[in-house]
């Protein structure tokens, strides 16, 4: 067993883990964060996507010991109380989910994608979500959700800039 300390959703945690333990298992089984899912054992489905130090990673392909000192954000951290994140809202509004099993991973990957490319082209959306599989939707509504979230986030940014302008 090895002791690992890292931040999860802005809280510091210390856990004893086996050296071979995967980050996803520690998040789910030891920290109770079951919003991050496991859909495969070959690093293909992306259900386990979380953010580590700001980048989207597959937590099934990361050892828990690699998270030492890192800051991890999971799906559970995205909403601000009752206030859904624009990406979460867009997935629901555009019916970008059916069974919802892929959804936490899709949403986390989308959050990163829109940080990298705030106004993504279709190619950028497809490329950005290439590591996430959805068995239900056929992806059309997922693409729509990403575009709609991009618009919502841009609007939020503009409003914030306006407000700042007014207060100056």
């Amino acid at each position: 067993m090895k002791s690992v300390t890292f931040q999860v959703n802005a809280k510091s945690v210390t856990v004893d883990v086996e050296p071979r333990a995967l980050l996803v298992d520690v998040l789910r089984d030891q920290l109770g964060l079951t919003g991050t899912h496991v859909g495969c054992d070959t690093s293909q489905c992306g259900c386990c996507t979380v953010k580590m130090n700001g980048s989207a990673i597959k937590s099934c392909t990361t050892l828990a010991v690699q998270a030492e000192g890192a800051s991890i954000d999971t799906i559970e951290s995205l909403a601000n109380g009752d206030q859904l994140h624009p990406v979460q809202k867009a997935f629901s509004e555009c019916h970008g989910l059916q069974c919802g099993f892929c959804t936490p991973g899709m949403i986390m990957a989308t959050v990163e994608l829109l940080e990298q490319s705030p106004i993504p082209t279709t190619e950028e959306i497809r490329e950005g979500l290439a590591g996430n599989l959805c068995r239900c939707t056929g992806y059309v509504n997922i693409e729509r959700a990403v575009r709609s979230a991009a618009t919502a986030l841009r609007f939020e940014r503009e409003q914030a800039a306006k407000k700042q302008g007014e207060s100056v």
Partner: protein
Amino acid sequence: MSLMRHEDERLITGAGKFTADWNLENQCHMAVLRSPHAHARVLKIDTAGAMQAEGVLLVLTAADITAARFNSIPSGPPIKGVDDQVIRKGEMPVLAIDRVRFTGQPVAVVIAESAVLASDACDLIEVDYDPLPAVVGAESAAMSDKPQLHPAVEQNKALTFESGSREAVDQAFNTAAKTASITIRSQRLYGAPLEPKAVLANYDEPRGMTMVYTPTQGVLGMQAALSAVTGIPTDELEIVSQDVGGSFGLRGGAGPEHALVILAARKLDRPVKWVAGRSELFSGEWHGRALKLEASIALDVNDHIVAMRYKDTVDLGAYNCYFGGFIGTNNLSVTMGGAYRVPALYMRSELMLTNTAPISAYRGAGRPDIAFAVERLIDHAAAEHKLDPVEFRRKNFIDKEDFPYTTANGTVYDCGDFHTVLDKALALADYESFESRNDVSKAAGKIRGIGVGYYVEKSGAGAAPKDQVSCRRWCVSPACGHRSFRSGA
């Protein structure tokens, strides 16, 4: 803003509850050892090494299943075929007894304090196999050089099924002006819902209930199947399926793992959990389709359809599972005339057992396959005889006035307006302007295509729809505050 689905909020915030998300106090974990052979005799299973491994609580083999008096996995109703012959079956045992018949078949399980320890210990089970030649491919399964899989299934032929009138169809083909034939292969696949198969079982002693947490698309079917395997009465089995990560037909009934988790929970008096790895499911889960449909059509001089004929080769896999028998029989034949007036219809299916994963329902279980075959046949005949595919369809559609319409093999279509639906579809696709759009595409060095297909399906099992909602044992004392809500459709 569109309406939010009721379930979305929990699913987009990570608060959904899929089977793997349930954890019960003091639970332990199961891992499954599966056959690496398509066909082999099992000479000996040595579990001593696994039993001594760290964290191991229990190892189960076929002997334990027999001792527990568990039955085999439900193999479906006694479907009848030619000459009233009842389907011959190879029933799937919960764990392989003295023979494995497909790669991925469960041979033994280990229950340990953690999932990784259970999986580690599986590697320590020694199985002595004597590999046998395997039957792969339904078409050659009956050949004399092929081994017979099950004592009760001679030549690996489970059933020869027929529907419609062979004589009427033969006669129509003999006097037809034009004919056309095509072979459709509906390839074997694994349905792969994104949530891997999982089961958590617990015996709730105060209530006398066996609790089974598992993804299912039919709570009542799951309950009935598990009762049939384990002997536990249905009213002592409670199925909990809160969020389900896709079904696609695979989640209709119980698999061996459900029964194994229940038995282990009972033996250890602890909750037992099993969450499959994706890789083991590719070979160990039910497969779908695996059909070959040889279709022929006969036309008169006016291009009216006079007959359709199908010869199907249906792979059941290594064992008959509950839904497997329906695919090659009722589900293929019931709408074999599609949306068309066909005076003579005949289908003959051979249902074969092979050393491959058992075939169960997948997305319509034969119905999309026959719809595809009908439409390909129509298009193929149109192409072969230089007919316009739309006009050819229109000419042969069952007209609105003809409903209710009884097909030549006895299916009643209650209503339909195929012409109007096709009109709308063609308008939406801007079918009329296709040629000019195609010219533009060609000039730009691109390839454009268009196709027409009509889909008629008998939905569900067709007979009596059944929903059941019941609230039982509702009591609010702190000791047993429990609510149970079941629903199946």
